[in-house]
Each structure stands twice: as C-alpha cells, then as structure tokens.
C-alpha cells in the first residue's frame, strides 16, 4: 500500500442505508427520504442542496442528535457509533451556528471537549494549544468565548472538533460566518484533514465544494438527486455553455434571441442576467453551427461570444432546477 493509501485508511468509512426521517408522526414532514450513501474513508465529501433539502437533518442523524424513522448509519463497521456514547470517540462535530458557554475561555472549552473524549488533562491541554494555533485562535485562547465574533466562534468550533484527532469530521456549514481570508484558511485546513480523517460537510456555497471535495451528493426535498466524484459529476451533467455579451442598448435583440432559443431542441436552458446571456446546449455540434445564425436572425449585435467551462453551479441548477419544475413526490 502506498503512503497515500495508508493515510486514506486513517479516515472512517460511512455507509448510509435507507436513511429516513419524518418529523411529527406518520403524517408529519418527511425531511429525509431513503437516503443511500457510501462515503469512502479519507474523502472530503460535500453535501449540497438548497435550503430544506435535508442536509442538516442528514448530519444530525449522522451524529446521533436525531433518531432515524427508518434506516441506518454504519461508521467503520460500527467501531464508531454516535448512538452509543461509549463509541462516540472518533467523531468531531461542528454545528451550523456554533454557540458555546460564553463564560468559558476558548482554551478551557477545547480542553473540556478533549477531556470529554477521554484525554488526560495534560494531553487535552497540549492538544487544545495545538488546534487553537492551527485555526488561528492562539492569541484569543485566553479570552472569554462570549466576546468572540461569529467567525471566531466558527474557528473555535473547528478547533474543538479536531481536539480528539477524529477519524470522521461532520461539519455543518463550516465556513458560513467567515470572511474571505478565513474561508480560504479553513477550507485549506479541511482539505489537509483528508490525510487523517473523512470529512463530511454541508454547504450551499458551490465554490467551497469545488475547491476541496472529492465527492459530492446533491440533495433536494429530502431525496438524493445524485452522488458521484466531483469530476465525474461535472463530466456527466455539465452541459456545454456559451456566454453571449451584447453591445449596450441591445435589450430588445437579447429578448428576441432568448425567445427564439427557448424553442429549439438543442438548447437545454437560457439564462439572461441583464448584461449577458448564458446558453446551455445538449448538442454541441449543432450549437456551434446554429447559435451564431440565431444571433444574426435576432439582429443582435454582440460585444463578445465565448464557450465557457461549465461548473458545479451549472450542474446544481440543472439538476435541482429540473426537479423544482416537477411536482413534489
């Protein structure tokens, strides 16, 4: 086995089977419906979805804060089991809106978490100093948590999640309160962690997923829409895109072109954002031949015309947008 292979084995493997959560009894809200996922050891796994998709419910079930209506989560063949306190070692958890004891100092809080994980006082103190340094809170370690900003609390949340050197990290929107610099640092930290842990994190920020994830699951209305390695997802679902920027004052021509393109079979979608038009196509050969003809027919003067690289946002909008047009199950 390679060194990289050894490192990957350090993370935990997660198997989710038929995971279902209904709140409020038999006629209540179905928050998650038969989720099936395999999260490989050592991967950074992104859960993506619009608000109410079931991301937080999935993570709450994963860490034992909620009980499944049906189905199971098995982590490392049961070696780690969030439903059993004696088998919770090995999981680090960060809540979406981390709120801690305001009267505690940052260092004390991380040490306490280390002690709860069974570390001795000395080791907990050393580890707390280590992880606080790693998340950039060493200087604020002696300050009371009540005086921390939202971003500092999020960093503190990551520090406490790391103190036991977990094999599985479950992070709910881990960078939502951070400024761009903090966001970059924490994402880099999460990416580094794949050497020692499996990371599952939810976000609605697609660029975060693109920056660090190996695999992505897209959830919508409690159901899994798709799950695959990021590259495979882009290759499978990302359609060729063309971006057209008209000359100023060409609103009427732009509208004519949009109307015309929405009727042709080789166009999947047309988005007009005011200053430009993005066209997703299903047949690239036809598009490369016909698209400019359509521009001419619409008497539209263009400032620029280019083929752009499709990204996860396009995949997401295509998959979730299509479901939004379908009636709910």
């Amino acid at each position: 086995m390679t060194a990289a292979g050894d490192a990957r084995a350090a993370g935990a493997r997660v198997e989710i089977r038929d995971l279902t959560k209904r709140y409020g009894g038999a006629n209540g809200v179905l928050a998650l419906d038969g989720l099936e996922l395999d999260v490989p050891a050592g991967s950074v796994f992104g859960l993506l979805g619009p608000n109410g998709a079931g991301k937080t419910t999935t993570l709450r079930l994963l860490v034992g804060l909620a009980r499944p209506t049906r189905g199971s989560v098995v982590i490392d063949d049961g070696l780690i089991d969030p439903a059993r306190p004696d088998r919770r070692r090995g999981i680090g958890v960060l809540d979406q809106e981390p709120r801690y004891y305001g009267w505690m100092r940052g260092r004390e809080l991380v040490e306490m978490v280390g002690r709860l994980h069974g570390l001795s006082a000395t080791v907990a103190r050393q580890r707390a100093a280590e992880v606080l340094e790693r998340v950039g809170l060493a200087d604020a370690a002696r300050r009371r948590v009540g005086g921390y900003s939202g971003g500092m609390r999020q960093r503190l949340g990551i520090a406490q999640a790391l103190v036991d050197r977990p094999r599985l990290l479950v992070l709910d929107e881990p960078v939502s309160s951070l400024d761009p610099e903090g966001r970059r640092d924490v994402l880099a930290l999460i990416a580094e962690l794949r050497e020692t842990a499996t990371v599952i994190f939810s976000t609605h920020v697609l660029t975060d997923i693109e920056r660090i994830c190996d695999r992505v699951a897209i959830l919508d209305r409690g159901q899994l829409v798709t799950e695959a390695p990021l590259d495979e997802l882009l290759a499978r679902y990302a359609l060729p895109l063309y971006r057209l920027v008209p000359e100023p004052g060409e609103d009427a021509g732009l509208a004519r072109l949009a109307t015309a393109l929405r009727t042709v079979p080789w166009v999947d979608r047309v988005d007009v954002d005011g200053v430009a038009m993005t066209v997703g196509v299903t047949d690239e050969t036809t598009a490369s031949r016909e698209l400019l003809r359509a521009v001419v027919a619409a008497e539209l003067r263009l400032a620029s015309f280019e083929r752009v690289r499709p990204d996860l946002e396009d995949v997401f909008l295509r998959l979730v947008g299509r479901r939004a047009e379908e009636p709910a199950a």
Partner: protein
Amino acid sequence: MTAAAPAARAPSAGGGGSAFGVLLRKELLESVRTFRLPIVAGLFLFTGLSSPVLARYLPEIIELAGGDQLGVLEIPTPTALDAVDQLVKNLAQFGALAAILLAMPLVSGEKDRGTAAFILTKPVTRRAFLLAKLVGLGVVLGASTVIAVIAGWIYTALLFEPLPVLGWLWLTFLVCLWLFAFAALTFAGSVVTGSTAAAAGIGFVALLGLGIVSAIPGLGKFTPGGLLGPATELAANTVSVGQLGTNLFYPIAATLVLIAAAIAVSAWSFGRQEL
C-alpha cells in the same frame, strides 16, 4: 443507528476523568463565573445572620414602631427556639424560591442555546449530563445552606445561648432535603417541558400545592413540609431523634421518594428527546 459488534476504539491518549467529573467541574466553574454561587451564598448568609437578630430584637422593633399602642398585648421574651424557628421559616421560603430559580433554566436553557446538543455529540451519556447538573445544583444549594446555618448558629449562640451542634446538623440535612425537593421538581419541569417559564410554573405550583397539603392534619408528615417542624425542634434541642420517631422518618422518606421520582422522570424524558 445500527452497529456491528467490534470493540470500541481504544483511547489513544486516555487517562482522562469520567465525563461526569468533567461536566461537574464545568457546572461548578459556571456557578462561580456566572456569580450564581456567590450571590445565592450571600443571600443565604444574610438569612442566617438576620434570622436570630430579628427574633432577638423583634419586641424592641415592635415597641419602637409604636407597639405601646397595642395596649394589653404582651410580647413574650424571645428564646433560642424563636431564633431557630425564624431561621427555618426564612430558609424554607426564601430557599425554596432560590431552588426554583436556580433549577428552572438548567436544561431548557442549554437546549435553547444549543449547548446541550454540543455536549451530547461528545462521548457523554445523557444521564451523566443530567446528573452533573443536579449535583452542581445540589452543591450550590447545600453550600449556601451550610453557610446560612453556621451564621445562624453563631448568632443564636451570641444573642441567646449555644445550642448542641448535632441538632443543627439535622437542621442542615432536613432543610437541604426540603430545598432539593423543589429543585428536583423544577428540574424535571425544565427537562420535560423544555421551557424555563413552564419549569418555573411547575416549581411554584409544587411549592404552593405541597404547602397546602402539608397543612392538612395528618398528611403533613407524609410531605416535604413535614421536615420543617422536626428541623426546628431538633436544632432548638426541644426533642430528640428518638422521640420524633416516624414524625422524622416519614417526611424524610416521602421527600427522598419525591426527589427520586423527579430524577427518574427527568432521565426517562431526556433519554427520549431529540436535540
């Protein structure tokens, strides 16, 4: 969650204390840092000091306040028994209010703030979480009661006469039991309802209800209210433990059962809740 049978991962850097010990330390530190313990202890100390003083100087106070207009009403000379009686009444009333106020947010507040969920994703049982809170609460109430009783004993000795310490140990134990009863009932309300206001309501209804029931002849000794009479008599050295017999045993047993029931309900309810 399902789990296969393999043994749990061995602690890599173990030697840490139990989760209960870590959480209890956190509760006690919180009591000090948030000034719960100093404030409650200070108020209890004031109660302990003021009760014998009030008993001793009440006749003078009434006289200075125009008591000569009461005419034939003669106020008896106060005794050590009056000091003890005053102390027990004040501790029972004021202490029960303090117990309710301290217990009502303990679990509901942590659930609201999200800190309960934070703690319970760690290797911590829900029972350890609750027990640490109860013991922490017990320490605050117990320590405050001890401070009040010591102050009360010293002032009673100075203003009246020194009384046997053993009786005051009984007083401490019985008053603590009384306070723990309301703390446990309010705590159960906090756990079961998840609402601080509802927990307070349950605590005050219990205080009122048990007060009414204990006033019913024959029933008093089967309620926590039955603890207060023996507490006064034992501290004032007017009766012995042997003479009290079932009048001491029944209220102690009834209160212990009530506390145990409240804790059991709390544990059962919390074990079933999602956070």
